[in-house]
């Protein structure tokens, strides 16, 4: 059978981990894109890079240091942004460069680039071991459950923060919770596509889904489906074709986006023509 390689443990673990990360990214990503925080994922992942380098430097399991650094940096930046009114893109630039700067210093101070560090940059989903897979599943379930529980206040807060506040939504607490969830999502997605390609998984399935003209719930479900399909297809195809899974996933997402854009340009998604509207 052509698909015999799917019986390999590493392949199954890759598919499970990939699907979990894809679902989380699509869900968190929709809110990020709509809040004009598209590059926030990139900034968080660069902070995580600094955190990983710190882990190697201090000889601590790098995932923990990466989580700690990106969550605290994200919280810090959110607070600074609120009190000093720095614009969102400037805050992202500060995080992005300070994370990378810290990482480069720590890498040069320790043993230079190692293969492990490389795998964090470009993803290494095929190298996921059993305990990583289990912890990623548990974390993903936590993220998904939290997003489902808070879906109504999150939607309201994303659409119009002030009205949400008047309605009694605890906007500030919700913002911190959301930022923390985004940071954790980035950490589990790093394994799938690497630090440098995380934005693709956060942004592409969502802007593709948003083009289809549906309501919020359907847009999120479409985005999750696209994200999971691209991840599965990317991992499955990358093995026989001997390609990097991360790049394959991202290019499939790009193809989906371009394809949808072309279909939309041809007018297939438009709901009603002017003639129908008049009738």
């Amino acid at each position, binding site marked *: 059978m052509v698909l015999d390689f799917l019986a390999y443990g590493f392949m199954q673990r890759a598919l499970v981990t990939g699907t979990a990360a894809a679902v989380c990214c699509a869900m968190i990503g929709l809110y990020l894109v*709509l809040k*004009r925080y598209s590059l926030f994922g990139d900034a968080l992942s660069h902070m995580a890079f600094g955190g990983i380098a710190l882990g190697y430097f201090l000889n601590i399991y790098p995932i923990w240091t990466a989580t700690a650094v990106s969550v605290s940096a994200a919280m810090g930046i959110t607070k600074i942004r609120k009190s000093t009114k720095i614009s969102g893109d400037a805050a992202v630039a500060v995080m992005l460069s300070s994370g990378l700067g810290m990482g480069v210093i720590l890498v040069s101070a320790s043993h230079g680039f190692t293969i492990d560090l490389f795998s964090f940059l470009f993803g290494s989903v095929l190298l996921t071991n059993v305990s990583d897979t289990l912890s990623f599943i548990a974390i993903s379930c936590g993220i998904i459950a939290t997003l489902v529980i808070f879906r*109504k206040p999150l*939607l*309201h807060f994303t*659409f*119009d923060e*002030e*009205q*949400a*506040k*008047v*309605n*009694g939504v605890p906007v500030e607490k919700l913002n911190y919770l959301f930022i923390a969830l985004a940071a954790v999502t980035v950490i589990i997605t790093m394994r799938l596509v690497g630090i440098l390609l995380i934005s693709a998984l956060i942004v592409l399935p969502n802007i593709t*889904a*948003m083009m289809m*003209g*549906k*309501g*919020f*719930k359907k*847009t999120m479900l479409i985005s999750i489906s696209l994200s999971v399909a691209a991840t599965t297809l990317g991992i499955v195809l990358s093995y026989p074709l001997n390609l990097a899974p991360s790049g394959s996933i991202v290019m499939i997402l790009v193809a989906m986006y371009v394809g949808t854009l072309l279909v939309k340009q041809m007018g297939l998604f438009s*709901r009603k023509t002017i003639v129908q509207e008049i009738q």
Partner: protein
Amino acid sequence: MNVLDVENVSASHNGTLAINKISFSVKEGDLLGIVGPNGAGKTTLFRAILGLQNYQGKIRLFGYEGSQYAALLPMVGYVPQKVSFESNFPATVFDVVGMGLLPKKKLQRGVALIQGCGCNWNRIFGESSKNTEKIGKALEIVGLEHLRDRRISELSGGEQQRTFIASALVKEPVLLILDEPVTGVDMEVQNKFYSVIRKINKENKITIIWASHDLTAISDYATKVACMNRDLFFHGEKEEFFSNKDLLKTYSESAMQMHMHNHSHEV
């Protein structure tokens, strides 16, 4: 029964004093029209009432302050001059109206606090109404039921504004604050809008505070009038305002200037 008491309230906007020691009360069932030129502090006053703005002085809702005030705040419907949202936000009219719904516990707490004051307020929707029914009925009130599955971004300005009014109604407000809600909307929609607010004011005893530059609409629909320009110059019965020639002259001039100003922008 006073729905709202504002006592000696001052607040700044971007470092300048926007409202200066304003005091007034709004009684149950009032339809209060607030007039004043642009920059008169109307929006700042509304934001202070809604807890979105720091201020000095006292504001009470149904006589309540502090945590009870905060618990009642979700029962206040607010339609700002303009709601700014991401242009391709994937939310349908139904989604946007649904955002106004309050969680059951919050609604119950608010209703209990209001009923504790012994006022005549009626809920727009029956106690056992399901959320979907409430959204449907709110859309019916503003005449948008045929657009419920359309994306909010595909609607005209007037339709969007009516959607936000439905979103303010769906929470079953006891007080509705409308900040120039029909600016830039055509006459037909304006008239529909005014008949809606009169209806809910009369039938459901929902108290309404409404900022407008349109003195004709105020004379047709408001029961009370307040005039402000950083300070409060008048607050009283509509008839009293319209029989005071000096006030009328000042505020119709400012309304006229406002009209001319908008017009020159349009040109």
